[in-house]
């Protein structure tokens, strides 16, 4: 069969070329008014419709397309793609664009339909319309359409027909064989229709996430993550990836920010706040950007807000802040008891813990927008208390679930009757799946009230340092503080590295011993006497054990073993513990130590980080979410797919070979300077099945000619750290760290991407 087709295909291909030429040579009809675009519905019925041309993607197998007169759904001809073997030296995939020289007016249609079948069951990687070689303002695509050996009708809805007044991109396709071996795909009766039986179910911008960001005049934010979901005539849902230009955008305050028709937000002013939202065909899209205002005095001004959310300044006259007391702590928004200093704003939240109250008396207050801990797991607040040593418990939970979903942190005042900024650290305890839509506040938890009055204001997420200790490898004095290198470096009888979902940690379970140090775990490090170190680590015990104590610290590993330690109580909930320690003696033969023998039970230990002031700024990490711990933000590209396992987030992709290496890609924005040398490092692995694969990694421009410095790296099924030294040929603030995956196929697990200037 194939051999016969080869000959015939050639003749058809020539015929197709001829068609293109003949159509493109047709003179314009001089009788048509200049600004009128035809509303022709047909794309391919039995032949190319008027003006239609085909051009293959340059890196595809360019001869893959043909017109078939033997196998058709209806009529005399169908389109046929001979999808090549993915190893075909002439191109491992088939694909291209069907365009018209003159744009068509598609405003009367709401869907592109076609029939398709294949010589074997297959998944079509990408098919859509709105793509030309000159532009893709209104590109759409459906990923992963299933095609079988029987003809079936397919639907690609037009997200917003009103936009397509002169569209040239009629159809495009990119397809590589699922299993790598060639097959044939037929497509017939391609046309635009207007069907009442397509129901738009939902639409999304920003992947449906409500983002909150500080407003900085002069910034632009490009809205992406746009898609829509349709209920097809067959009663199933189908998602459609669209460009942002199909949506209608609104800024709630155009003096603060405007949005253009392509979804580019321009921040005009730092004074005030604005919510950017979108609709698609009149349906509200999920996802928004809230530009927050922090006023000149540094105090939170939420007076223009339409929803109760962080940052919370209690300044709005219209929002119904509703603190609900429990146990005897009546609360209300009131005037600032001491304007000036840290707090110049007018209104604050007042709470009185009345005499005879429950020891746990406090308030809950519902938020309209859940707290997004993805960029920061620390909250700061201004507190005004009548005594130093007042403890302030600030928690967040899902109001529908209650305490079981709560994260809470406690901070303590050190001054009386003065505004003071306190920081509440939730590092490692928040869950991205939880809606933290309720605030919980308790003063002096555990002590009954005495009519004391407390004030709080300016509750806001801090800028964040990425949280989850261990993220900044360059700072950590410990080689294997996160145990990811396995059973090395550490020593002691409690040393027992376990791995779960790609994350390694130490797991011990001990009885109470005679000496605390009878059960121990240590990591060698050089210490200097008199210098202050910060030791942080994540720890938990089992549910059964509930809580236990450990001794943690730093000290000599020789002589008198002089050390600086603290007793830490570990609970069944993983928390990050941070100790500030100054060792009495120094030596290159020193260690970080954990002595466990004074109490019994399970101990899970991870992400042990030891830093000093001196090491903090040795190398500045240029990537804000290089370890993916902040989730689905900052990075972009079609290979962006953050997964979380055992508290560690990483990017997981699995791709086919594509025409261009950059067809499958993942990038992190960064500012680069030309001629400066950078070090890019990352942890990567592929699956056991794939064995090994190559990727292209590097840094370069995210605009213009995309000039980049890259290297091809071979990744194996064993996680390794790869370090590249790169000097970009050009620099720009619109640059990126990039991973192009399309040149080879397979799974790629990527984590701990770091870029520093040498």
């Amino acid at each position, binding site marked *: 069969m194939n051999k016969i087709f080869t000959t015939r295909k050639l003749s058809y291909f020539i015929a197709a070329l001829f068609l293109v030429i003949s159509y493109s040579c047709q003179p314009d009809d001089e009788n048509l008014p200049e600004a009128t675009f035809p509303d022709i519905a047909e794309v391919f019925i039995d032949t190319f419709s008027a003006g239609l041309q085909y051009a293959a993607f340059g890196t595809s197998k360019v001869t893959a397309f043909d017109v078939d007169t033997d196998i058709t759904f209806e009529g005399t001809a169908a389109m046929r793609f001979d999808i090549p073997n993915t190893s075909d030296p002439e191109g491992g995939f088939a694909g291209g664009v069907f365009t018209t020289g003159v744009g068509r007016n598609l405003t009367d249609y709401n869907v592109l339909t076609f029939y398709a079948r294949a010589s074997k069951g297959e998944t079509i990687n990408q098919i859509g319309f709105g793509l030309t070689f000159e532009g893709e303002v209104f590109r759409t695509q459906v990923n992963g359409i299933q095609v079988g050996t029987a003809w079936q009708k397919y639907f690609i809805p037009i997200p917003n027909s009103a936009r397509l007044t002169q569209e040239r991109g009629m159809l495009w396709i990119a397809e590589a064989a699922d299993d790598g071996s060639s097959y044939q795909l037929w497509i017939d009766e391609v046309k635009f229709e207007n069907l*009442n*039986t397509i*129901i738009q179910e939902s639409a999304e911008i920003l992947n449906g996430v409500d983002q909150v960001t500080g407003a900085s005049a002069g910034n632009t934010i490009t809205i992406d993550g746009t898609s829509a979901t349709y209920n097809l*005539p067959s*009663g*199933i*849902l189908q998602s459609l990836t669209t460009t942002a230009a199909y949506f209608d955008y609104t800024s709630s305050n155009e003096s603060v920010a405007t949005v253009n028709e392509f979804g580019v937000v321009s921040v005009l002013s730092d004074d005030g706040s604005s919510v950017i939202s979108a609709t698609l065909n009149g349906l509200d899209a999920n996802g928004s950007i809230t530009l927050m205002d922090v006023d000149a005095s540094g105090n939170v001004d939420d007076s223009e807000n339409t929803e109760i959310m962080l940052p919370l300044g209690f300044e709005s006259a219209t929002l119904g802040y509703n603190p609900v007391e429990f146990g005897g702590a009546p609360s209300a928004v009131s005037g600032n008891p001491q304007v000036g200093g840290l707090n110049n704003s007018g209104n604050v939240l007042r709470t009185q813990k009345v005499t005879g109250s429950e020891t746990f008396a406090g308030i809950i207050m519902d938020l309209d927008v859940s707290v997004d801990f993805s960029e920061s797991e620390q909250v700061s607040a201004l507190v005004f208390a009548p005594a130093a040593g007042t403890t302030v418990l600030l928690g967040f939970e899902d109001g529908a679930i209650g305490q079981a979903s709560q994260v809470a942190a406690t901070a303590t005042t050190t001054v009386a009757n003065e505004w003071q900024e306190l920081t509440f650290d939730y590092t490692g305890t928040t869950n991205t799946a939880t809606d933290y839509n309720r605030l919980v506040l308790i003063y002096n938890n555990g002590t009954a009230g005495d009519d004391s009055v407390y004030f709080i204001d300016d509750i806001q997420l801090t800028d964040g340092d990425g949280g989850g200790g261990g993220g900044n490898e360059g700072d950590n004095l410990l080689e294997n503080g996160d145990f990811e290198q396995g059973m090395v470096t550490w020593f002691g009888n409690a040393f027992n590295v376990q791995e779960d979902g790609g994350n390694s940690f130490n797991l011990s379970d001990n009885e109470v011993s005679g000496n605390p140090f009878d059960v121990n775990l240590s990591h060698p490090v050089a210490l200097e006497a008199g210098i202050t170190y910060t030791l942080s680590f994540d720890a938990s015990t089992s549910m059964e054990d509930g809580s236990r104590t450990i001794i943690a610290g730093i000290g000599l590993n020789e002589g008198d073993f002089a050390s600086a330690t603290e007793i830490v109580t570990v609970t069944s909930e993983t928390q990050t513990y941070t100790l500030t320690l100054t060792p009495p003696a120094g030596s290159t033969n020193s260690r970080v130590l954990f002595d466990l023998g004074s109490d019994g039970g399970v101990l899970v230990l991870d992400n042990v980080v030891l830093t000093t002031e001196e090491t903090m700024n040795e190398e500045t990490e240029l990537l804000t979410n290089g370890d993916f711990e902040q989730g689905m933000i900052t990075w972009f590209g079609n290979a962006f797919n953050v997964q979380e396992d055992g508290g560690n987030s990483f990017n997981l992709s699995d791709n086919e070979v594509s025409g261009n290496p950059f067809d499958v890609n993942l990038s992190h924005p960064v500012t680069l300077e030309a001629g400066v040398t950078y070090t890019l490092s990352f942890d990567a692995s592929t699956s056991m099945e794939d064995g090994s694969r190559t990727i292209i990694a590097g840094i370069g421009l995210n605009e213009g000619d995309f000039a980049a410095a890259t290297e091809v790296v071979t990744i194996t099924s064993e996680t390794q750290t790869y370090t590249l030294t790169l000097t970009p040929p050009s620099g720009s603030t619109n640059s990126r760290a990039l991973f192009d995956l399309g040149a080879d196929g397979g799974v790629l697990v990527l984590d701990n991407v770091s870029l520093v200037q040498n």
Partner: protein
Amino acid sequence: MKIKNVILKGIAYSLICMAVLSCNEDEGSTIGLTNLNLVFEDDFDGEAGASINTEFWNFDIGTGNNGWGNQELQYYTDRPENVSLDGEGNMVITARRENFQGAAFTSARINTRDKVEQQYGRFEARIQMPGGRGVWPAFWMLGSNIETEPDDDPATIAWPFVGEIDITEMRGQEPFRTIGSIHGPGYSGGGAISGELDLIDERFDAEFHEFAIEWSPDFIDYFIDGVRFNRINKSDIPNGTDWVFDDQPFFMLLNVAVGGTFVGFPVDATPLPQQMIVDYVRIYEIGN
């Protein structure tokens, strides 16, 4: 809608029936019975979230026997999440994808047994149907003396001998098609006597339609929005089988099944939850 698991058979046979039925005279006419008196009406007025009126309605709870005889996947409940008034004059049955009592879906099925029963007349309801692959809504009737558990009581009669009239049922993957059927001994399950109406470029799950039958001693007529699209005569049942629709009053049922032998199974891309929104249910008797 059938309530016992019956081997599918007679597909060709039902096709023949269809062909015969399509030759009926008066198809497409709006002419029905003229001497009708309204005897029962539930407009489902009440507050949002309120339960239905249990003077008229009973709840079927659980998974029945073998998924109500059809390998259906849902657990029927009487929770407001699955059946309640919407505060705008409608009753809503909601099929949900949720783990509940070992089932992967929940929904509701209500009936008027022993509360509202009638022989002959017009039975109608205005409904916006649910849709989605594997979703199976129905507005239907059963003979009042149906035997629900095997017993020796001569006063109860097993299905299909008791008779079943499906005013409408739909396969969610064919949201354009309503199917009206009767089931009796010798013409049940896959062999039921059916008629279908297909909307052109519209969907039953996108808007309200009025589904009705007119049941007389001579025939059963099927209507959509007041237009008759099918008539089943006594002569349409197979030779040698009994017409079981002259013996007793029938009660009504409204339900949304998920999965089952009639509809197939839902898939991940099935849009859920799905709602059957019922504006009213009415019964008219035939006057003298």
